[in-house]
C-alpha cells in the first residue's frame, strides 16, 4: 500500500537577549554551572518573574516576518510538572493565548515549486535547566544556567509530506530567525532545537494516523534521518498488523534509530493555568511599529528581486540569499562592478569554495566586497583573463594585497597588444613546422596544441580570445 507521511514541527529557538526572560541573569553560553542563575532562576521562595521586553520585541519581529497575527493581548501560563532541572515545578509558557498567531512560510520543493507551510502559532516561554548525569557517580548534577533563557516555540501545521519538506521548512525557519536577528540559531549550543510530530496514512485518506513525537533533534541531518527511520518503523508496525502508539520518542544518532521515551498514558497532565504573577501581555500599535520598523527585506522577497532585477538563476538567487551577510556582500559587489551575473558567479564559485574550505563565514572573508569588486573590474576591462583572475584571487585570499597590487607585483597583466601576440605566434609556428603541416592537412585537433604553446610562451598572460583569432588566421596561411 502506498503511504503518505504527515509531519509537523515544533521548533524551540533561543532568543538573542542579553538577560533571561524573567530575570536579570545573563544568558551567555558556556559559563561554569550555576554561575548564571539568580534567585529567580533558582525558584527560591518569594521571588517573582518580570518579563523581559526585549524577548517580546524579538517575538513580534518573528511574527511580522512570517506575516502572522500579533496578539494584542496574550497570556503567560504555568505548565506544571516535576523535574529536577525545572526549579519552580512549572515552566512559564504561553498556552491558550500566544503572542504570535497564524502565519506561514514558503519552502522550495525539489522540482523548484514553492509550497506554503502554515505556522500555527509561536509563543514565548522559559527554558529549563540541564541535568548532568555523567560527572557525578550515582548522582545527578543540576546546572540552572540555562533556566529562564527566553525561547520562542514555533509550531507548524502538519503540512509537510516528506522528510525533505520537513528539513526545508526547518532550514527556512532557521534562515528567518537568523536573518531578522532574533536568534543566533547555534545548533551545537542548543539555540535551535526541533521536535517532530510524524504519522503515516494510506495515500488518499483524509484523517491523520496516530502520531509519534520525536523530541529534541539538534541538526537538520538528524532530523531527516530520524524521520526516515520513523516512517519505516511506522510502516513496518502497520503492515505487520500492529498499531502505531501515540508516544514520545528520542532519536539516537549513534544507532540511527528512534526509541520510545514515554507513552501517552505516562504523559504528564500539565495543569496549565494563567500565571497569576504576570499580567496579560498587551502589545499596542506603537510597540509593534517600533519593534518591526527596522525589519530587513526578507529572504524570499530578496530572492525574487535578485531574479527579477539582476536576472539571476533560481540557483544563484537561492545561494546568495542563504544569509543576510552573504546577500549584502553580493549586492555590494554587484553594485560596484555593475555586472550582477559576474558577481554571482564569483561569489557562488571561487569565493564560496574558498570559504567552505577554510570553514569561514562570509563575514570573516579575507577578501572584502570592495576587494572582490576590484578584481572583477580588472576582468571587465580585460586586464585579466578568467584564468589570471583566479591566480590574483588566490593571492588576494593569501593576503597579498588588492587586485591591482597583485597584478603589478606579479606582472600578471593580460597581453592584449595584437602585434605582441603575433610575434609569439610566429615563433611557435616557426618552431613546429611538422605540426603546422599536419594541421593544414586537416588535423583540426592540433589547434589546441598551438593555443597551449602560445599561452605557455606568454606565461598565461595573452588574451585567449585574441590568441584564438590570430592563430586561426596565421595557420590558415
Amino acid at each position, binding site marked *: 500500500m502506498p503511504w503518505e507521511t504527515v509531519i509537523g514541527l515544533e521548533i524551540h529557538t533561543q532568543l538573542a537577549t542579553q538577560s533571561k526572560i524573567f530575570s536579570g541573569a545573563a544568558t551567555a553560553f558556556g559559563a561554569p554551572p550555576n554561575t548564571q542563575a539568580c*534567585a529567580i532562576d*533558582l*525558584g*527560591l*521562595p*518569594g*521571588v*517573582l*518573574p*518580570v*518579563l523581559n521586553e526585549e524577548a517580546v520585541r524579538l517575538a513580534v519581529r518573528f511574527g511580522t516576518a512570517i506575516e502572522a497575527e500579533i496578539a494584542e493581548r496574550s497570556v503567560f501560563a*504555568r505548565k*506544571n510538572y*516535576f523535574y*529536577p532541572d525545572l*526549579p*519552580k*515545578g*512549572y515552566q512559564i509558557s504561553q498556552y491558550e493565548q500566544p503572542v504570535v498567531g497564524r502565519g506561514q512560510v514558503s519552502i522550495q520543493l525539489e522540482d523548484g515549486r514553492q509550497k506554503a507551510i502554515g505556522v500555527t502559532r509561536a509563543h514565548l516561554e522559559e527554558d529549563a535547566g540541564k541535568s548532568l548525569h555523567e560527572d557525578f557517580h550515582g548522582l545527578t548534577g*543540576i546546572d540552572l544556567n540555562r533556566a529562564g533563557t527566553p525561547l520562542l516555540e514555533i509550531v507548524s501545521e502538519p503540512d509537510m509530506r516528506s522528510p525533505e519538506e520537513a528539513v526545508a521548512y526547518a532550514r527556512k525557519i532557521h534562515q528567518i530567525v537568523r536573518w531578522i536577528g532574533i536568534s543566533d540559531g547555534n545548533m551545537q549550543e542548543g539555540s535551535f532545537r526541533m521536535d517532530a510530530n510524524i504519522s503515516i496514512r494510506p495515500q488518499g485518506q483524509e484523517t491523520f494516523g496516530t502520531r509519534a513525537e520525536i523530541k529534541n533533534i539538534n541538526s537538520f541531518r538528524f532530523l531527516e534521518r530520524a524521520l526516515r527511520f520513523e516512517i519505516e518503523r511506522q510502516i513496518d508496525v502497520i503492515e505487520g498488523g500492529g498499531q502505531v502508539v501515540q508516544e514520545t520518542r528520542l532519536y539516537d544518532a549513534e544507532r540511527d534509530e528512534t526509541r520510545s521515551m514515554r507513552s501517552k498514558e505516562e504523559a504528564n*497532565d500539565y*495543569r*496549565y*493555568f494563567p500565571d*497569576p*504573577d*504576570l*499580567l496579560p501581555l498587551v502589545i499596542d500599535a506603537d510597540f509593534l511599529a517600533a519593534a518591526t520598523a527596522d525589519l530587513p527585506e526578507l529572504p524570499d522577497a530578496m530572492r525574487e528581486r535578485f531574479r527579477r532585477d539582476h536576472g539571476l538563476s533560481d540557483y544563484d538567487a537561492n545561494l546568495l540569499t542563504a544569509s543576510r551577510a552573504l546577500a549584502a556582500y553580493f549586492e555590494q559587489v554587484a553594485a560596484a562592478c555593475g555586472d550582477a551575473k559576474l558577481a554571482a558567479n564569483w561569489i557562488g564559485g571561487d569565493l564560496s569554495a574558498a570559504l567552505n574550505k577554510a570553514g569561514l563565514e562570509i563575514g570573516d572573508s579575507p577578501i572584502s566586497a570592495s576587494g572582490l569588486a576590484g578584481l572583477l573590474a580588472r576582468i571587465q576591462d580585460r586586464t585579466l583573463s578568467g584564468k589570471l583572475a583566479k591566480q590574483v584571487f588566490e593571492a588576494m585570499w593569501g593576503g597579498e594585497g588588492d587586485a591591482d597590487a597583485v597584478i603589478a607585483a606579479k606582472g600578471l597583466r593580460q597581453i592584449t597588444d595584437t602585434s605582441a601576440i603575433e610575434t609569439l605566434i610566429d615563433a611557435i609556428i616557426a618552431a613546429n613546422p611538422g605540426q603546422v603541416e599536419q594541421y593544414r592537412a586537416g588535423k583540426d585537433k592540433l589547434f589546441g596544441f598551438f593555443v597551449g604553446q602560445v599561452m605557455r610562451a606568454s606565461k598565461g598572460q595573452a588574451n585567449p580570445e585574441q590568441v584564438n583569432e590570430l592563430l586561426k588566421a596565421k595557420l590558415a596561411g
Partner: protein
Amino acid sequence: MHKKTIAELDRGLRQGDYSSVELTQHYLARIERLNPRLNAYITVDGDRALAAAERADSRRRQGQAGPLTGIPIAHKDIFCTQGLKTSCGSRMLDGFVAPYNATVVERLEEAGVVMLGKTNMDEFAMGSSNETSWYGPVRNPWDETRVPGGSSGGSAAAVAARLCAAATGTDTGGSIRQPAALCGLTGLKPTYGRVSRWGMIAFASSLDQAGPMTRSAEDAALLLQAMAGFDPRDSTSAQEPVPDYLTGIGQDLKGLRIGLPKEYFGKGLDAGVAASIEAAIAEYRRLGAEFRDISLPNSPLSVPTYYVVAPAECSSNLARFDGVRYGHRCQDPRDLTDLYTRSRAEGFGAEVKRRVMIGTYVLSAGYYDAYYLKAQKLRHLISDDFRRAFAEVDLILGPTSPTTAFPLGAKADDPVAMYLNDIYTIATNLAGLPGLSLPAAPAAGLPVGLQLIGDYFQEARLLNVAHQLQKATDWHLASPPSFD
C-alpha cells in the same frame, strides 16, 4: 512603654524619654518572659534587633529619624529576611535562610524600624486558627485556651500581648483581618497590588496581600505609608501613587454613605458579635455617617470560589518545594520519585497537603473547566457585586468574623467549619478590594472585629473611618489583662 502606640512611642523617642535600644531591650525582655505562654514568635534575634536599634538611635542623633525610626516590630515569618530564618511556619523551610529581603522588610528597614523577630503563622498561611504551624499553635492573649485566628496568628498575638509595637501580616482570604478581630487589633488588607509581594512566600498569588497589624488606625497608616508603592520586581504591583495616609485620617464623617450588606448579618453570625457591630453602627451614626442596606448577592459563593482558586494557585506555588535545591529533603532517597514524595510528605502538614491535592485536582485535565474556569467566572460576579455597591455607597461595613475567638482544637478536625471563619473576609480578596478590621465593643470579654471594605485604593478612607471611631471610643485601647 509597651502600652503605647507607635505614634506615642515616636513622641517618646523624639523627646528623649528613652532610646530605641532601651525600647528594644524592654520588648526583648517581655518576649523572653511572655512569649513561652503564647508561642507567638518562631525566631527572635536580639543581637540583630539591638544593632538595628543602635543604628536607629544614631540616625536620630543625626536628625534623620522618621516616624518609624527605632520602633520595634515583628514580621510574619512569610517575609524573607536576609540572613535570618524564614520558615513560613513549615517544616519544609525550617532552616531556610533567604539571601534577600522582601520588599516589605526592605522598605520598613529603610524607614528605620527594628525587627525583633519573625512571628508564628499557619503553615504557608493556610489556616484560620494558627493551629497548622509546624512550630505549634499560638495562643490568644485574651484567653490562652483560645486561638488567635490565622494565618497571621503570631503577629496578632504578639501585638495584642505587647510583645512588639506592631507587626506585618499577609491576607489571602482574611489572614490579617480575622486574627486582628480575634485579638482586638486594627488590621488592614490593602488593595491587591498596593504592597509589593516580592520576597513574600506565595500562597495564592492572585489573592495575597501584605498589610499592617497594629494597635490603632493611626499606626496602621504609619506602617502602610512605608510599605505601599510600586515595586518593579513585582509585575502585579500597582503604579498608583501613594497618598499621605496620616493627613488622610483627619476627615469628619458627615454625609459618609455606608452600606450594610444583608448577607453579612444573616444566619451564622454570633449574637454577641452582632450586638457589638450594632453598637459600632450607632456610634458611626452619631459621627454623621448614613447607613443603607445593600446586597452582595453572590457573596455566599465566595467561600467555594476561594477554595478552588486558592488551592489551584497554591498547588503550583508550592511545587518548588521539592527537596532538590533547598528546604527539607528526606533521608537517603532511593530515586527521584522517592525524593519528591517523601520530602514533600514529611515537609508539609495535613492542611497544606489537603489544599495541594484540591488544587491539583481542580486544574487537572477534564476538571479545569468545571472548577477553575467556573471559579474565575464567579470571581467576576463577586467583583461586580462590589462595583454595583460602590456606585451607591462610599464604604461597606459588617463583622470581620462570625464569632469571637474559639477554643484551641474546636475546629481543627473540621476543615469546612474552619473555612467558614473567613466567610466575610474572602470576597474582598477575590475582588482585590481593601478591607480593614478594627475592634468593636468586646463580647463576653473577647474582642470583636468590625470590618470596613472600601473601593480600590481607598485605604486612606478606610483608615480615616477607623480612626474617627477610635477617636470617639476606647474599644481599641483595651489590652489583655494578663499581659499588662
